[in-house]
């Protein structure tokens, strides 16, 4: 699935989840941020945005009851702007980064709130999106853009599991060796597999108020 398809799908989901009749700018921004997030966190420029504080259930995929929604006029204009931005940088398809860049001059709604809370300006937003886009073209792949093949596989190799948590494979092997993370051996072989759903067992929440390194 193309990243824009994921973003639009999540935007529609956000509108439905909030009981809105139209898919507006806030929904599209949330969809885009969800696509570029890792574990519900978006690191953009010097800002760290926690999707949970923006009322996004970052683990939940679109499903369940589906009331009908349509795009708003503002959404249409945003897509038009994103297409112009894509053209201006010589790219033939609109990506999630073009959509994000198209939010740069928004002063109201969620984007306006992000600007106020984080001290974001139009220029700093565009610069941060451009930097992220260049990381993408150099091989970085946010979780929302993981290949369908990887997304669908329930069992991971130790290398893939380590990559998913962004830790060294030796650390992952230590978790397995010490029993902190359940793992399985393919019958009669040396190969080890980890259930994707078990990866959360080595994560623990940061304690608010306690002095911890972030």
């Amino acid at each position, binding site marked *: 699935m193309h990243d824009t398809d994921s973003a639009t799908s999540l935007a529609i989901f956000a509108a439905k989840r909030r009981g809105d009749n139209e898919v507006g700018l806030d929904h599209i921004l949330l969809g885009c941020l969800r696509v570029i997030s890792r574990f519900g966190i978006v690191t953009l420029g010097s800002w760290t945005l926690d999707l949970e504080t923006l009322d996004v259930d970052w683990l939940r995929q*679109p499903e369940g009851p589906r009331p*009908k929604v349509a795009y708003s006029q503002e959404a249409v204009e945003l*897509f038009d702007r994103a297409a112009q931005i894509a053209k201006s940088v010589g790219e033939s398809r609109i990506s999630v980064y073009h959509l994000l860049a198209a939010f740069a001059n928004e002063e109201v709604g969620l984007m306006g709130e992000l600007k106020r809370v984080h001290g974001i300006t139009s220029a700093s937003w565009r610069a941060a999106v451009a930097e992220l886009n260049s990381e993408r073209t150099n091989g970085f792949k946010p979780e929302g853009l993981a290949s369908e093949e990887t997304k669908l596989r329930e069992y991971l190799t130790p290398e893939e599991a380590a990559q998913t948590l962004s830790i060294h494979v030796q650390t992952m092997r230590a978790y397995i060796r010490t029993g902190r993370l359940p793992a399985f051996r393919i019958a009669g072989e040396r190969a080890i597999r980890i259930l994707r759903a078990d990866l959360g067992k080595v994560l623990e929440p940061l304690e608010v108020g306690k002095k911890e390194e972030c």
Partner: protein
Amino acid sequence: MSFFVVKRDLPGVTAEVLQSAGIRAKSCCAEMTGEGQPVRWIRSFYLPETAQTHCYFEAQSKSAVEEANQRAHIPFTQIVEVIEMTPEMV
């Protein structure tokens, strides 16, 4: 499933506006399909001389195609059922 052509008059339209509309059409078709009302945007042709666009969709009914276009916020002048014919069929 039947085929339909959606005719649009879009004087002065740019390639970017068409691309923007394409993304919206694609996402609305996917959403309606997920809702249990399958609609598929097949392809579109822009006729520069007349500033018209002919967009082909596959769906169970004309109303489904109409709804997909309304949700995508893309104007149209007419939706007509079409009979498919390819060189392989004759």
